[in-house]
């Protein structure tokens, strides 16, 4: 592998890994905040225990998310110095604003929340976890402002071959962001909700602390229902936008080698990327046109036509991303999404049961379903980021021209090895602790006699 391939591998590994922790942080902070708010308003101690129990799991996850986020902030400069120089006038600002408006909020108020149970009033303490939840959302907003510029550059003028900030409002109201942000946030909420549902079902089957897990399941089911609906609706809008803004990504995701009007939706397509054709191709006629334009006709451009178009526009080169990654990650994401929508209804079915009585071992599938949002989140980002290749900033800078020219291959090899090993070890510890505390469950409610004795 050359230095570029190594740097790309490192970015992929560290970013995918970081985003294992981010969605749960976004979702579980919201759910914990809702639980504590119910406690403050109703005075029901169970909700306080819920906030503490789910909050403890939140913190184990949060710690790894925070420290792996540091790498993200540093590695643009370390491995992608040409990129940093090229987009610095635009890209640095949202990163700095993220630190100022989001990280301080999260970091300060999580400290107040963990250590403040006896030092703050009930209301202020609940406010602290809301500040954390808001901080995670604001953080997602700013990093996606930066990311959206890479997909759909707006608000700039080219000066001496570099994009310079021209209109800040355009940058933060980037149409790409308007779908990307809600899609990401909703999927974070789904992740948190499935986490709580899965663990609650696990304990409901054990018939211990039924009231506690029943209430947890209720809160999470409501969050899950609203947010899976949000993910799917916004996802649809996002795909329609993709047809306009990044047609090549859509063509790859659909295995559509040649333009079609009306365009068909792929049921299963296996492509020979070398030859540039589909070897197996089963498609639903007109369906892609319908999804793209809400009518049964309309051209969706294919990979070959787009390649020609881009060669004319940007000069010779290969403008086709990995069709296999785009095609399959799109399908896995969408499939996982609809499966989750179904499972949310299943969770409501449990809610409808008398005293949440469930017995069949099949219910453990809901616990296993904790993995589904992770699968969807990861494949979603794989589609988003690999589908943009060969560009790092769409139409402006290619990934190959973005890497640090002065960092020796050996250095990148070293850092790639170090991060892979370190992250691997952290994953083992994190999963071990998560499983340990999730299985152990909440401590039994203190009986009246115990309360008296103490």
């Amino acid at each position, binding site marked *: 592998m050359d230095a570029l391939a190594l740097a790309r591998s490192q970015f992929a590994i560290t970013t995918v890994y970081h985003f294992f922790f981010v969605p749960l942080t976004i979702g579980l902070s919201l759910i914990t905040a809702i639980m504590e708010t119910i406690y403050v308003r109703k005075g029901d101690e169970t909700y306080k225990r819920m906030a503490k129990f789910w909050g403890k799991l939140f913190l184990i996850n949060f710690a790894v998310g925070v420290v792996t986020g540091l790498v993200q902030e540093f590695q643009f400069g370390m491995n992608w110095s040409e990129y940093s120089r090229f987009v610095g006038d635009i890209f640095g600002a949202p990163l700095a604003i993220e630190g100022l408006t989001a990280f301080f909020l999260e970091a300060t108020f999580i400290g107040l929340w963990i250590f403040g149970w006896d030092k703050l009033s009930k209301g202020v303490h609940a406010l602290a976890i809301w500040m954390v939840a808001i901080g995670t959302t604001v953080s997602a907003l700013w990093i996606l402002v930066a990311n959206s510029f890479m997909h759909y550059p707006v608000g700039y003028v080219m000066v001496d071959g570099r994009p310079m900030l021209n209109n800040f409002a355009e940058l933060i109201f980037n149409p790409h962001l308007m779908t990307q942000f809600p899609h990401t946030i909703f999927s974070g909420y789904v992740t948190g909700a499935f986490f709580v549902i899965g663990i609650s079902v696990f304990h409901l089957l054990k018939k211990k602390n039924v009231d506690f897990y029943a209430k947890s399941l209720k809160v999470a089911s409501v969050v899950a229902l609203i947010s899976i609906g949000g993910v799917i609706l916004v996802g649809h809008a996002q795909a329609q936008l993709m047809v306009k803004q990044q047609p090549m990504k859509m063509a790859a995701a659909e295995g559509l080698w040649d333009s079609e009007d009306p365009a068909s939706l792929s049921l299963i397509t296996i492509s020979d990327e070398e030859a540039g054709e589909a070897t197996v191709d089963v498609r639903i006629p007109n369906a892609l046109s319908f999804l793209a334009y809400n009518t049964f006709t309309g051209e969706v451009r294919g990979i070959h036509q787009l390649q020609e178009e881009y060669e004319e526009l940007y000069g010779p080169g290969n403008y086709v991303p990995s069709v296999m990654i785009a095609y399959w990650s799109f399908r896995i994401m969408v499939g996982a999404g609809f499966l989750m929508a179904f499972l949310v209804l299943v969770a409501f079915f449990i809610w409808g049961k008398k005293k949440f009585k469930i017995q069949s071992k099949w219910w453990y599938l809901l616990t296993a379903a904790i993995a589904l949002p992770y699968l969807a989140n990861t494949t979603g980002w794989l589609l988003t980021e690999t589908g943009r290749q060969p560009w790092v900033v769409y139409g402006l800078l290619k990934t190959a021209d973005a890497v640090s*020219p002065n960092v020796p291959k050996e250095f990148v090899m070293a850092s790639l090895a170090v991060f892979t090993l370190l992250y691997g070890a952290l994953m083992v510890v994190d999963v071990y602790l998560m499983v*340990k505390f999730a299985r152990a469950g909440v401590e039994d409610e203190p009986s009246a006699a115990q309360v008296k004795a103490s």
Partner: protein
Amino acid sequence: MDLQVLWFVLVAVLYTGFFVLEGFDFGVGILLPFIGKKDEEKRAAINTIGPLWDANEVWLVLAGGATFAAFPQWYATLFSGFYLPLLLILVALILRGVSFEFRGKVESPRWRSLWDTTAFIGSLLPPLLFGVAFANMLRGVPIDGNMNYEGGFFNLLNVYALFGGLTFLALSALLGALFLNLKTAGSVQETAEKIAKRLGLPSLALLLVFVVWTLLTTRATPAVLAIVFGVISLVALVAGLLAARARRGGLAFGASVLAVAMNVAVIFASLFPNVMVSSSDPTFSLTIRNASSSPNTLTVMSIVVAIFLPFVLAYQGWSYWVFRKRITAKVEDLNY
């Protein structure tokens, strides 16, 4: 006001905030093996920084982000050039961050001592390596006409830079000891006071040599402001050490904070208007002029900072107020 100068000052202030705030919590981590043999004593020490360290570290994140936003060329040259030290810093910060969260999660002495070790190493390396990096930035490193560092790794290991690293390390440890002295009671406080006394003179000696060395060698004529900051730094540290002897814990900590802040100020004042000095050719140096973002970006960023920084300072300050009480090594008071 000149926006590029303003942002140079802001970046300097952010790094100063980092070296002061995270400085003392690095210090607490460095002293962990020495603060007491009993687990409760170590836990008491960690609990003093438990609610604070994460927000302290955001000062570094913001300093990095602000450098990227306001001086992208500086960010690109520095971070790609000092690749290996930054890699080590990242590893250290990662290990340290999870140590605090993980160490109390399993009831086993081996588990705890594992995370105590990573917290120690993770706290020791960053001030040392940042000291080396900042000293090099000022001393000058080989930078070519395209603003790229071309010096390899061993170029960074010169005597001046290593001395800078040691100075930052010693000052962090001292701040940590004075902070523990202020924030704990009982055996931990007594040990911290002893450690602070022992660290006092060596730290002062290191600071004195580093400041004088910086003023005499990094420029043809030292900047007036740098001399002023240097004098304040040294006087403040002397005052801090005297206050520690007089058992005035608050004053000792406050004066030492000032000393550390002024030491960072010496570096930035000596650097100005450069941001990275090229030893290959002075005309290749990065300055606040050739490394900065456009006036448009700097204006937007200035407005954002003017709106949000007061809030940040207010709530972070408030959190210090909430956790102002001393912490004892009694188990029921401890979180971690």
